[in-house]
């Protein structure tokens, strides 16, 4: 009876693989649902897509021909099937306004959004996590109150208004940063004609090209919108960090670490943080997704040529394929981020692996 029950086999990766496969199944269903929603939205559009192509004065025959070409004469379920099939091949339809494929236009706009949201999330995490930890280690203190109120303010701020105020103060009054746009026009030309584009993200591309003047100018443009988005995500991340950290600091294993004489920084930043990191991954992924969404409004303020601007511009020219294509892309990014955080979660948490 003294034999120790053997720990489970060492191969911890196998269950992860099954879980990833299962997750991919869910992902597929969710994406299908997403396409169904946009499909339904597209079909109830009051503006007839045919009329917008041929114009009001087309003959019956012309309309019928176009209908056939667009597949609108097929039964709805077949149309949906074709829609899904096209989307899977990366074909999101043709923009009514420009006549170009929506997918390739989005591919051109998306890096700007990605750059902005990524930088915002990095800011938000770098400030939000320490702030949340600070608040959690001194509950009820002045620091805690400040983190709480500053966080709630971030929750309550309309992001487009925040952008306007930011422009007014830091660009208009203080002149610390450059104004709207990703680059000054001169650098924009340089970027376009003399530098090689690798990723479409100016900070990365200019650095890879060694064009530090372009890089510096890009920083002066992106710092304000990214900082503001960072504030919004900081509000969320600091709150969640605080609540997770409070929870972990109440656990018994924390006392064990202290019993062992571990210094407080190690108790908090190693013992507790390793546990906080598990749910925090999901939170950061979620806030990243929200920043991609928040960029819709921010981009209009900062004339930022990203996905948000693309969607809103398309909205105003009633370019439904472009609007829905953009919606699908943001939805896919959302779902994928969720999925990725789920998988990462399982990799980080040993309890979820078995």
């Amino acid at each position, binding site marked *: *009876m*003294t*034999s*120790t*029950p*053997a*720990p*489970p086999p*060492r191969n911890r990766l196998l269950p992860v693989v099954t879980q990833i496969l299962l997750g991919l199944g869910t992902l597929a269903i969710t994406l299908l649902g997403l396409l169904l929603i946009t499909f339904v939205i597209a079909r109830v559009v009051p503006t007839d897509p045919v009329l917008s192509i041929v114009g009001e004065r087309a003959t019956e025959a012309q309309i019928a021909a176009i209908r056939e070409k667009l597949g609108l004469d097929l039964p709805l379920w077949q149309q949906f099937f074709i829609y899904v099939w096209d989307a899977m091949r990366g074909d999101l339809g043709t923009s009514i306004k420009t006549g170009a494929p929506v997918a390739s236009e989005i591919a051109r706009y998306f890096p700007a959004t990605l750059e902005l949201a990524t930088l915002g999330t990095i800011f938000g995490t770098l400030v939000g996590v320490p702030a949340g930890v600070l608040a959690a280690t001194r509950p009820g203190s002045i620091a805690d109150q400040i983190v709480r109120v500053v966080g709630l303010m971030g929750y309550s701020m309309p992001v487009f208004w925040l952008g306007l105020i930011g422009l007014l103060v830091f660009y208009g009054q203080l002149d610390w940063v450059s104004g709207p746009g990703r680059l000054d026009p001169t650098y924009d030309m340089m970027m376009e004609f003399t530098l090689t584009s690798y990723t479409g993200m100016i900070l990365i591309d200019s650095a890879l090209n060694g064009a530090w003047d372009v890089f510096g100018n890009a920083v002066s443009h992106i710092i304000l919108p990214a900082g503001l988005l960072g504030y919004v995500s900081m509000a969320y991340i600091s709150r969640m960090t605080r609540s997770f950290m409070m929870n972990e600091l*109440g*656990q*018994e*294993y924390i*006392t*064990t*670490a*202290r*019993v*062992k*004489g*571990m*210094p*407080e920084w*190690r108790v908090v930043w190693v*013992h507790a943080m*390793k*546990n906080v990191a*598990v749910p925090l991954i999901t939170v950061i992924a979620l806030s990243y997704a929200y920043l991609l969404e928040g960029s819709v409004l921010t981009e209009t303020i900062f004339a930022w040529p990203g996905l948000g601007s693309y969607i809103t511009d398309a909205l105003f020219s009633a370019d439904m394929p472009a609007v829905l294509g953009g919606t699908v892309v943001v939805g896919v990014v959302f779902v994928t981020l969720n999925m990725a955080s789920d998988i990462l979660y399982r990799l*980080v*948490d*040993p*309890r979820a692996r*078995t």
Partner: protein
Amino acid sequence: MSLLEVRNLRVTFDTETGLVQAVRGVSFSLGHERLGIVGESGSGKTMTGRAVLRLIRPPGRIEADAMTFDGQDILHASEREMRALRGKRIGMVMQDPKYSLNPVMTVGRQLTEGLRLRDGLGRADATAKAIAALEAVQIRDPGRVMDAYPHELSGGMGQRVMIAMMLIPEPELLIADEPTSALDVTVQAEVLSILDRLVRDRGMGLIFISHDLRLVARFCDRVLVMHKGLVVEEIAASRLLDAKHPYTKGLLNCLPRIGGPRGPLPVLDRAGI
């Protein structure tokens, strides 16, 4: 000279529903001996043990007339001075290994972190020491356990890991909070004999917290009986079974079911008697 001296210790929790007095004036002194603390669930045994290490969390407060360890005032010692004592000179085996081990760190890292951080040992040396400590508490496959996460261990293994962890720095005082409740008899006997050797050969002081009166009567030198935060009786372990105090008698009378037996031990123990 006594190793630990506690006079009129009180532990109070300031909760929303009012003050909760978990410990209400406990005094005892401990030499290089085995002191048992028994009492029903919620009587304040754990809080007494933690108060010695000054590890009561807010809203809990510790008050006492005096608390000294090896001549050093630990009631007023700075947090820094306390940290120097914790682990190294005073260890504490925590009550429930299921919650007392860090769920996302391997057993090996938790065992070696003290050695590596505090004693500056290299990875190989620390690992060797940890493995030796695991072997000492009768763990068959220490290499494997080192790589395991706590949730992969059984309750009994967790308890032994916890004991090994606290014994590694060879403390002068060990507070063991129900250290053997999930062990079966043979392992329990082995663990107790390790603790016994440490007390006898190295002069370690031991505070042994338990529900199990018979075990305490057999194993310890002296016993404190606690009830509602007070020590109701202090008695030599050998005379525990004919104690005077009505509460102790009551405990003895309902012996097989005190607070619910936690492991298979009481059953086997009864058969052995």
